[in-house]
């Protein structure tokens, strides 16, 4: 297990390196001279542009920039924003707290929803609950996050105010004239709606996965064995079936955790949350390459870690996957 973990870790590092290099290529090599973009409505004299270019080291050949970039990265320095000389570390720090909160609750809710819906619809297969679950899970796949985000704001924010439905007015001390985009970002209330929006998309997908995986597992011989042993249905489902059904679910959950950042970008934009997602979006739009790259590294590393954890958790869930276990006799 240990050597396997080390090997996987090395693989992850290679993947991160390759992905970061890819991003570096996209943002630093292809556009040529991002500094000239600093001239907006008012043009800047060439001397000024040259100063700025030199300040960011962009007058150096690309490979020098590339090695310097890694050199700084190893020292934990993600560089400075083109826009305002603020260090990317600070920007990351600012955005991370919001995003981490959003993603943590989102991922947690996602798991809870997925498990609840998936389990009930698999166990009570064909029941009304199962059908509603299926409609929910299929239906949600067609709704992009930004639409559900706006919809959620309309339903829980706008409508209760306009209709004076105080009972629905979950965010009570809300401004009188409410528009999209305000969320008290500091309290749990502020995070619950965005987190729900983040959660729901892939929760539906995971729930479907769990359902079909469970249905398949429930047909397996060892489930019959478990029943034949005299175990209660509960124990069979939760002890014997669920763990086996989790393997494909963990894969999907991992994929969705990697994708969750893309979801977060939309959610943060819709709800005006000052997180990493909206920062990346804004920085990408203004071609603030160091910020995009700096934050992307974190996101990519996160993705690689998720992949790693998913792979390692396979081994936890399924002993067959342990690599250096005893040879098969």
């Amino acid at each position: 297990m240990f050597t396997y973990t080390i090997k996987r870790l090395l693989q992850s590092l290679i993947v991160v390196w390759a992905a970061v290099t890819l991003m570096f290529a996209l943002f630093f090599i292809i556009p040529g001279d991002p500094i000239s973009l600093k001239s907006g409505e008012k043009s800047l004299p060439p001397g000024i542009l040259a100063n700025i270019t030199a300040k960011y080291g962009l007058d150096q050949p690309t490979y020098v920039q590339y090695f310097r970039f890694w050199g700084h990265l190893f020292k934990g320095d993600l560089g400075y924003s083109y826009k305002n000389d603020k260090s990317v570390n600070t920007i990351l720090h600012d955005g991370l707290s919001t995003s981490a909160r959003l993603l943590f609750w989102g991922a947690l809710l996602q798991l809870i929803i997925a498990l609840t819906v998936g389990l009930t619809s698999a166990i009570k297969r064909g029941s009304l609950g199962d059908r509603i679950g299926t409609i929910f899970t299929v239906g949600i796949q067609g709704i992009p996050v930004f639409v559900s985000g706006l919809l959620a704001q309309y339903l829980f924010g706008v409508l209760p105010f306009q209709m004076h439905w105080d009972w629905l007015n979950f965010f009570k001390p809300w401004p009188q004239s409410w528009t999209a985009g305000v969320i008290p970002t500091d309290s749990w209330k502020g995070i619950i709606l965005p987190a729900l929006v983040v959660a729901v998309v892939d929760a539906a997908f995971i729930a479907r996965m769990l359902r079909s995986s469970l249905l398949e597992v429930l047909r397996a011989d060892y489930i019959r064995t478990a029943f034949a042993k005299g175990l209660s249905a509960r124990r069979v489902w939760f002890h014997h079936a669920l763990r086996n059904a989790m393997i494909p679910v963990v894969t999907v959950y991992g994929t969705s955790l990697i994708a969750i950042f893309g979801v977060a970008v939309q959610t943060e934009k819709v709800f005006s949350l000052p997180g990493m997602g909206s920062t990346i979006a804004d920085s990408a739009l203004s071609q603030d390459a160091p910020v995009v790259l700096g934050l992307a590294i974190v996101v990519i590393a996160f993705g690689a870690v998720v992949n790693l954890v998913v792979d390692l958790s396979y081994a936890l869930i399924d002993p067959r996957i342990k690599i250096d276990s005893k040879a098969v006799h």
Partner: protein
Amino acid sequence: MSQPLLHIDDLYVHFNTSDGVVQAINGASLTLNPGEIVGLVGESGSGKSVTAMSILGLVPKPPAIYPKGRILWKGIDLLTTPDRELREIRGGEISMIFQDPMTSLNPVYTIGHQISEMIRVHSRISAKTAKLRSIEMLDLVGMPNPAQRIDDYPHQFSGGMRQRAMIAMALSCSPELLIADEPTTALDVTIQAQILEILEKSARELNVSVLLITHDLGVVAGICDRVAVMYGGRIVEEAPVDDLFERPLMPYTWGLMRSIPQMDKVSTKRLYTIPGSPPVMSRPPKGCAFAPRCEFVIDRCHTEVPQLIEYAPHRMVRCHRVSEPDFIAVLA
């Protein structure tokens, strides 16, 4: 003779499927006495497994429905027993092993965990005691090094070892009946010999009745006291093992025996073949299920289902023509 341990009485099991109703069991009756090893043979799809699983209530409902019949376990009808009580019986009084030891064990738990779990469900003992008992059981079925191997996962065992573990588990709560559904079909002959030996030895030792399901007549011949032959969802013949092989009464049994290539007989001549293929149970023949393939078929066979009659003491058979005086001679 004492009260039978198990009595399956005119059992019907149907499945509602998109293809129509699959009439898997159409009036099967079978009796098992304490300490007896009974074989149940028949072709694939004849309903052996469904019969066996019905005893423990393991057939999923839906799609299964039980239009008729009883399964009496020491006098109580298992089909109407509430789930709680049925759970006590499962594993505690009747236990079961399955065809494929590869898939019958949960891959994510250790063998020890799975055996102890069974023991602890049926008796209030500590985890430690359960583990000791598991080791004891593994030892009984000839598992080498049981104390170490108990913490291994199923995939770390070979097929034969897995099946031993299954047997150990099945016997761990001292059941009165062990249902073995094709326990050796997935194994090689040399391993099959090991498993059958262990199965018979432990059953006789612990005085457990065994319902041995197989499609291999050779397996039955070796260890069974009595044999029942199933065809098209019905028991078509039931007899003490020697009688059945010596003098099959039902044309299907007769044909089956003659169609097996015999290693000991030098037979360069053609095998006997039963023409056609087994019935599709969603559209079973109206009369005798074997009629479309039977060499001795008469008109009545196509229209009327024959009854299971006691042709001679302990010899049950389901055939219209068996009562014809010279018919037996034809078969012999």
